[in-house]
Structures are given as structure tokens and as C-alpha cells.
């Protein structure tokens, strides 16, 4: 009867949403029955002990690399939490917390072994790379050797330093911009300080030294010559009489007669009699061998071939090649001339070439118009 009245007054059961409950996932170390770290060991909290049979078993100092105490790891720690449905009337529920969560992160042995293996592998890879980079040459100061034997002390190599030229030497290579003077006027080696041509042995030795040590500073080509010049065995009594201008340009055809009158032709890199018996470096010989034909080609025509001026007025040449017809500039009439006769301009005919149609006189060369 009362139920009916209640149903009539209050109504049917109602389902109402409370919401999301505010809870705690972990009760913390101070909860009863849990473990907390104290004085280097896991001890049960001030609440109820985990096990009354062996309370001191949990008080163990974990070794390095070891996990939680075996008892703590095997037996789950129990944290009591209040039940939401019946917190007051029902006994408190117990939530099991995994013992693995209580392990310190440092005490995982697998991770340490992994880091150790990774470090060892890194060291070995580094050593291997060092050996590969150095190509097995352990004399390089920065190379890392995989062996434990100490490296030999690096032997200091003398660097090929070019000595400073002597004050009376005047330099190994002379560049002369002054006009050439004959041999009679050329100064003596003692007076002029012209460096003698070095012997090939010191130069070859210097080049070998340079090739052995690629890290050595690059020495200018003049350095071996200077060092060779400083060697007493390379000194020669006779000086090189010819100064060489490496960038001498060939003379122009028009200036050749004047040059021939002023000074004789200069042959570049020509071996002098004084230097003849002495063996020259291969590089110098090759350069002279290359330079000699070019110089002869340039100088020979300049010295023998006079400049040719072309004249006009040649009209015809007889087929027999004995006479040629020229136009007289005064009368504008054709006049026949033979070899040996004198033209109106004053020059005499020397040769008549019918095939090429040319007439060569003493000063000019005529061709058919």
C-alpha cells in the first residue's frame, strides 16, 4: 500500500547522471601497505605492513643493476582505495599496483647492457674509420690506432726551404729588358753575378722531396735553381753568356732589317759551348728543344729575306719569259722591257716569271694587274 502511494507521489525510478568521478590512480607512498624509499631501502609505510611473517624482507638495499627486491617484485603491493559505491559500509577495496612501477629506472640491467654494447660498437667503428682514412699509415699524428701499442714519435722531415739568394747572386733567373749586347761586352759571371746553370742531380732530389711530402709548401720553380746554384759542385767556371727573355716576341718583318743592323739575332735557350759538357736538367732540355725550332723559324727569314714592295704597271709578260710590258706612268703607253733593263722608276729587272706572272726588280716585285 505504501509502495503504491510512493509510486504515486514520487514516481518511477529515475536514472540521473552524476558525471565523471574524481579519483586518484595512486594513493602515494604514504598509503597504508605501500612501499616507500627511505634510507637506501624500500620500507613499508607507516600503515599496515605488507606481510607480518617477514617484515624485514622488504628492507633491502637494491644492488646496482638489480631490480626491486624479489619479494616486492613477486608480491604485488596493495594500496587500499575507498570504494565509491559503498565507502562507509563496505570494506575498502584494494587496488593492485604492479611492482614494476616501483622499480627505479636506473636499475634495469637490459638497458645498461644495451648502452654498453652501443658504446663498444661506436668505439670499434671509430677505430676502423680512422684506420681506413689513414690508409694504414700510423705516422700521421692525428690517426687513431686500434692497437694498444704506442705510436712511434713522428720524425720531423726537413722541409725544402729555398735559401735566400745571395746578394751577389742576383737571383736565379734574370730578366733582362735591356738591349742585347755582344759577347765581348757581356760581363763576366763574377762581375755580373749571373747564376750558373744547375746540375740535374740537386734539382731531381728537390723534386723527389717535394713529391714525397704532399703537405709540404709548394716551392716556386726558381727555388730548386737557387738551391742548386748554391751547391759548390754545380758551379761552373764559364758563365752563361746569353740572357734569356722567356716571353720574347718574334720580330715583325718590317722591323727586321733595322733589327739586323742594330743587333744580331738572339737564339733563345741555345746551348753555349761553355755549358756544353754539363748535363742539363730534363725540363730545361725539353724546354730548349721545344723553343729552338720556333726561334729558328722566326729569326731565319727575318735575317735573310728583305722586305718586298709591290709595284704596279706590269701589263703583260711574253711567253718566253724574256721581256715584260710595263705602262709608262708619264706617257701612259705600254713599253716592253727585258731582263737587265732599267724601268722608268729607276730599278732594273732581275727576273721574269711567266708562270706566276711576276717580275722581280731590284727593289720591287711586280705582278700582272
Amino acid at each position, binding site marked *: 500500500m505504501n509502495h503504491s502511494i510512493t509510486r504515486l*507521489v*514520487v*514516481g518511477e525510478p529515475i536514472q*540521473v547522471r*552524476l*558525471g*565523471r*568521478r574524481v579519483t586518484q590512480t595512486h594513493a602515494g607512498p604514504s598509503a597504508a601497505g605501500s612501499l616507500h624509499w627511505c634510507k637506501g631501502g624500500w620500507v613499508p609505510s607507516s600503515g599496515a605492513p605488507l606481510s607480518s611473517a617477514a617484515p624485514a624482507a622488504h628492507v633491502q638495499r637494491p644492488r646496482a643493476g638489480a631490480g626491486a627486491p624479489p619479494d616486492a617484485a613477486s608480491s604485488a603491493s596493495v594500496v587500499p582505495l575507498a570504494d565509491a559505491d559503498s*565507502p562507509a559500509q563496505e570494506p575498502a577495496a584494494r587496488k593492485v599496483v604492479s611492482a614494476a612501477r616501483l622499480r627505479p629506472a636506473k636499475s634495469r640491467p637490459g638497458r645498461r647492457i644495451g648502452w654498453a654494447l652501443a658504446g663498444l660498437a661506436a668505439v670499434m667503428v671509430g677505430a676502423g674509420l680512422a684506420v681506413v682514412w689513414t690508409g694504414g699509415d700510423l705516422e700521421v699524428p692525428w690517426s687513431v690506432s686500434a692497437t694498444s701499442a704506442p705510436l712511434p714519435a713522428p720524425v720531423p722531415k726537413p722541409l725544402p726551404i729555398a735559401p735566400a739568394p745571395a746578394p751577389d747572386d742576383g737571383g736565379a733567373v734574370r730578366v733582362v729588358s735591356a738591349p742585347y749586347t755582344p759577347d765581348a761586352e757581356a760581363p763576366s759571371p763574377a762581375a755580373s753575378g749571373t747564376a750558373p746553370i744547375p746540375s740535374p742531380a740537386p734539382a731531381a732530389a728537390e723534386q723527389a722531396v717535394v713529391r714525397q711530402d704532399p703537405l709540404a709548401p709548394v716551392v716556386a720553380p726558381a727555388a730548386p735553381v737557387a738551391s742548386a746554384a748554391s751547391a759548390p759542385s754545380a758551379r761552373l767556371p764559364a758563365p752563361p753568356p746569353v740572357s734569356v727573355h722567356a716571353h720574347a716576341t718574334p720580330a715583325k718583318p718590317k722591323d727586321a732589317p733595322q733589327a739586323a743592323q742594330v743587333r744580331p739575332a738572339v737564339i733563345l735557350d741555345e746551348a753555349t759551348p761553355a755549358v756544353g759538357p754539363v748535363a742539363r736538367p730534363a725540363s730545361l732540355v725539353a724546354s730548349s728543344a721545344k723553343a729552338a725550332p720556333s726561334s729558328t723559324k722566326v729569326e731565319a727569314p727575318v735575317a735573310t729575306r728583305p722586305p718586298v714592295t709591290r709595284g704596279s704597271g706590269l701589263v703583260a709578260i711574253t711567253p718566253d719569259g724574256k721581256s715584260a710590258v710595263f705602262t709608262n706612268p708619264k706617257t701612259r703607253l705600254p713599253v716592253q722591257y727585258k731582263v737587265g733593263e732599267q724601268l722608268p722608276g729607276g730599278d732594273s729587272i732581275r727576273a721574269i716569271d711567266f708562270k706566276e706572272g711576276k717580275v722581280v726588280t731590284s727593289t720591287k716585285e711586280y705582278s700582272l694587274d
Partner: protein
Amino acid sequence: MTNDNGEIVIDPVAMNIVNRVAPGSFQSGTYRSAGGLLVEGKIEGDVEVTGGPLVLMPEGEITGSIRVDGEAYLFGTIGALSEQELSNVEIAGVVYLAETLQAKANITCGTFVNYHGARIYGHIWSSPPRES
């Protein structure tokens, strides 16, 4: 009573809720309920509930002191007595502070269960139930 979804079923018969302030109802002054009380209306004054729970529905509103000897399910609004004085709520058992609760009161209870979203302006004292 509560399930995993955070819901509760209010069964008047099972919970011995015999009184109800229906929606739109207004009660002024002291209200004493012998048995459980379901409030969906508005009450201004003191409320005393014995022999059952107090269920303050979301649309219900109480302004005044509340005394309950059992549990209390608070979904609605508890207003302050004045701007300077909060209401007093004394729950002997467990009080459920639902997500829709808006209370300006000092709550004294045996145990409280809080839910996300509950707005409470005041103190909460929880004391274990007295052992007889």
C-alpha cells in the same frame, strides 16, 4: 546504485523516498521529512531529512540549512543565505557532489564523492561516522 558510466538510478521505493517537492512547487520555511525527500522545486528555509536520503534534482533549489541523517545526492542548486553568509549542509552519510551541482555552502559530511564539474563555493568537512 551507481554504474560505470557515472549514472545512478533513483528508485523511490528502494531508497525509501516518500516525499517530493515537484517541479514548480515552492516551499518557504522549515521542511521536515520523515523519510527520503526528492526536491525538484524550490525551498527557502531549513530542511531536515530523516529515515532516507535527500535527492536534490538538477532543477531543484534549496536556500537554507540542510540536515540529513543518511545520504545526499546533490544535483541541483544550494543558494547562500545572504551575500555574506553561506548555507550549512550537514550530511551524516555520504554526499554525492554531481557535476551539475552549484552550491554556496559549507558542507560537513561523513564522506563525499566528488564528480568533475561540481561547483562548490565553501568548505567541505568530512568526518568518519561515529561509532556507537
